[in-house]
Structures are given as C-alpha cells and as structure tokens.
C-alpha cells in the first residue's frame, strides 16, 4: 500500500463545474485516491443540465456539493472557496486533476511549513506528456493558475475570492495582482503536476472570447504601470484589430467596447518590476475562430 500524502489533510479542494459531467467524474475518480486524505472536496455547480448533480449524489456522496441557482461564473467558485476550512485551498477546474505521484515534494514542503501564500503547480495538458520530475522546491512566481493552485485560506478570505464581476476567464491574473498588491508571496512548484485536459467543451465559444478580451483589457487598465499603460493597451488593441481580421469576427471588438463601458470598482497599478516579472500572457483567445 502506498504511503499517504499526510499534508493534504490540511488541504481543501474546490472545483467549479458546468456541464462537463464526464470530465468531473474522471477528475473526482483520480482525486479521491487513497494516498490523498483531502480535508474536504467541494464542487460548486453552475446550473449544469447534463445530470452532473445526480452523478455527484449517486457516485460521490462524500463530496460537498453547492448547487447554484444561476450561472454567475466565478462567483460560484467563490462560494466554494470561501466555505473551505483547510489551511490551504486547492483550486481546480472540472477537467483538471493533480497527478498525485508527483506530489511528494510538495507534501514534504507543506509538512515543514511553507513561507509562500500561493503555490502554483505545473499545469500540463496531458498525463502522457509528463516526464521525470526532479525536486525543485518552490520558487517565486508572480502568477496563478485557477486550474491547479494552492492558496492559503487567509489570503483567499482577505481578498474575497476571485473578482466575481469578471464572470470567468482571466480571473487568476486579477487575483494575482491583488494578492501582490496586498504583499502576498506567490510561488510555483514545478515538480508538482496538475493535469489540465482542456476539454474543448465550452471553451471555443463566443462568450469565452468576449469575456477573455474584456477581462484582459480591464486587467491592463487596472494594474499596468502608469508609464507603460498606453503602449501595452495599444499593443493589445493592435492584436484585437489583427485577429478580428484573421478570424473574421467582431467579438473581440465587442469585448473592448464592454471594457470601455464598464468602470472597474478599484484600480491600483503594479510597479514596472512586478508587472514584468508577472509577465501576463496578453494574448487574445485564439481558439475562437469566428
């Protein structure tokens, strides 16, 4: 019998789910392995219509389910995140799952006490592409991946979870920026792998492209260093023009318009150093082909 990853007793898992029943089933099957004594597993379901809730009730009775009445995007995940009781919260997507055989090093680090407030795992698209992983410790990393990151519960509660007004997509960038501005220490553990299968369902939609465009532009308006803001926004909009032509679509333009009309509640710019170390991926949602 394999040894348990004892530190995971202090880790709660929060998963946001929406109409991906089979993916969620696979994720939970892998997640609820004997070696991982998670403190709790919470699934927030954004009004799935594919029998997800029945599947959870029948097959995973130990999973705490939060059935939401309306699909309000990441607000649903916030409910799950803020209800967690573990010292750490592992945020996952319904199509992402820890590869537990690579979690030994992180287990050791968590047992000894960790100085970081967030730990982003190495998120890979396929289990088949996982080679040998050597121990690397945790290194500073100014970012976060919603589909595979551990966040201290105190930090999550201080920040009130992800910004619900963003709805979905790009919310991690906003969260990372707020955490940094609050003085949190963000790190990454490269040897700890989470598989994110990136199921195409619900991904290449017009809605995804719209929110992604809007949220990235909003991120720049909120947090880009003042002296770089003009050039960063300009370069982003150049991509909007080029990809609107390339993909023959107006959805990116609509995203920009929505960002213009929408006044963020707060803004606080990052320093040039923080922004460049953060290295936000300011791509348009290329998977949408119009």
């Amino acid at each position, binding site marked *: 019998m394999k040894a348990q990853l004892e530190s995971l007793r202090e880790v709660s898992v929060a998963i946001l789910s929406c109409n991906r029943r089979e993916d969620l089933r696979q994720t939970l099957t892998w997640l609820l392995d004997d070696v991982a004594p998670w403190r709790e597993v919470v699934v927030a379901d954004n009004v799935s219509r594919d029998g997800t809730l029945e599947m959870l009730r029948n097959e995973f009775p130990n999973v705490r389910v939060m059935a939401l009445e309306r699909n309000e995007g990441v607000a649903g995940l916030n409910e799950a995140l803020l209800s967690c009781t573990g010292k750490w919260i592992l945020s996952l997507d319904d199509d992402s799952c820890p590869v537990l055989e690579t979690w030994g090093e992180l287990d050791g680090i968590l047992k000894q006490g960790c100085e970081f407030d967030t730990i982003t795992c190495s*998120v*890979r*698209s*396929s289990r*088949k*592409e996982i*080679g040998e992983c050597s121990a690397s410790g945790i290194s500073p990393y100014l970012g976060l*991946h919603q*589909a595979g990151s551990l966040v201290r519960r105190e930090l999550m509660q201080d920040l009130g979870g992800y910004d619900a007004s963003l709805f979905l997509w790009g919310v991690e960038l906003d969260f990372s920026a707020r955490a940094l501005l609050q003085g949190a220490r963000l790190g990454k553990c490269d040897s700890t792998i989470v598989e*994110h299968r*990136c199921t195409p369902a619900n991904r290449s939609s017009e809605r995804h492209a719209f929110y992604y465009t809007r949220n990235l532009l909003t991120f720049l*308006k909120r947090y880009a260093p003042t002296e770089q*803001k*003009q050039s960063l*926004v*300009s*370069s*982003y*909009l*150049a*991509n*909007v*023009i*080029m*990809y609107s*032509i*390339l*993909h*023959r679509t107006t959805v990116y333009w609509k995203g*920009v318009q929505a*960002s*213009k009309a929408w006044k963020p509640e707060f803004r606080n710019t990052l320093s040039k150093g923080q922004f460049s170390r953060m290295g936000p*991926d300011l*791509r*348009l949602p*290329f*998977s949408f*082909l*119009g």
Partner: protein
Amino acid sequence: MRNPVVIIRTVSVEKMSPVLDACVVRWPDAPIWVVSTPGRVDEMRRDKRVDSVIGYEQEARGFGSAISLGAHAVAIVVPVSNEKASGYGNVLKATLRIKANDYFICSRCRILVSRGKGWFLWKAWNEHWFGRIALCFSGFWAERILDAE
C-alpha cells in the same frame, strides 16, 4: 545545411502521413523538420520521411512561446483539420519568428492548397507592415480609451 521544410504538427500523427507525402513530393531535396509536442516526438522520429523533430514546451493554452529554429526554412506547413479554419491564429503567432520563404496551409491534411489568407496574413505579419498599420490605429484607439477613464 540545406534549408528545411518545417511542418507544425497540429493534427494527429496518423493524419501527418499524407502531409509528409505532400511535402516530399513538393520539396524532394529539402529535409523535413517537424515541430511537435514533446509527447509525440519519439513517434515522429521513427518516421523515415522526417529528418528532425523539434519538441516545444506546451502550456495548457497551447504554445508556450514562439518557435525558434536557427535556420531559414523553405516553407512552413500548417496542416489543418478544418478546411474553413482561418489559419489557426495561435500557430501563426507561434511561427512568426521562423524565417521562411513561404507559408502553406495543408487543407484536409492531404494537399498543400493555395496559400490564401493564411499566407497573406503570415507574409503581412512577418514583414511587419500589417502590425505597423494596426499599431497606428490602436495607438489612437488606446488614447481614446484611456482618456475616457
């Protein structure tokens, strides 16, 4: 060193076979290099038509960074599953650093079709004039957006 033909493997290994055939016929003297995700590198290496396989670091969202070769390619070939796809914007951007004479979309994964829009955009982008025009407009646009804040 002869200039290679670079195929970006965006379709399954099985669907690559007709693409490789098409490239061998079109450029009989050029070595064929395939850019692939690390998990398929060995499989592609076993194919006798392929001279070199380059793995790239794959992020969950696709290409982790632009592909660099250190060689001038005869052509970049991008097989696409869907004939009507717009040339795969992410692939286009990932290949922008590769110096090449030509850019082909391999429609339906079997024939090298007219370069069409993919080639035009690649050319325009690679020579930067498309980007420069877009930047002129976007600079003005950005100013307006930020002034309105």
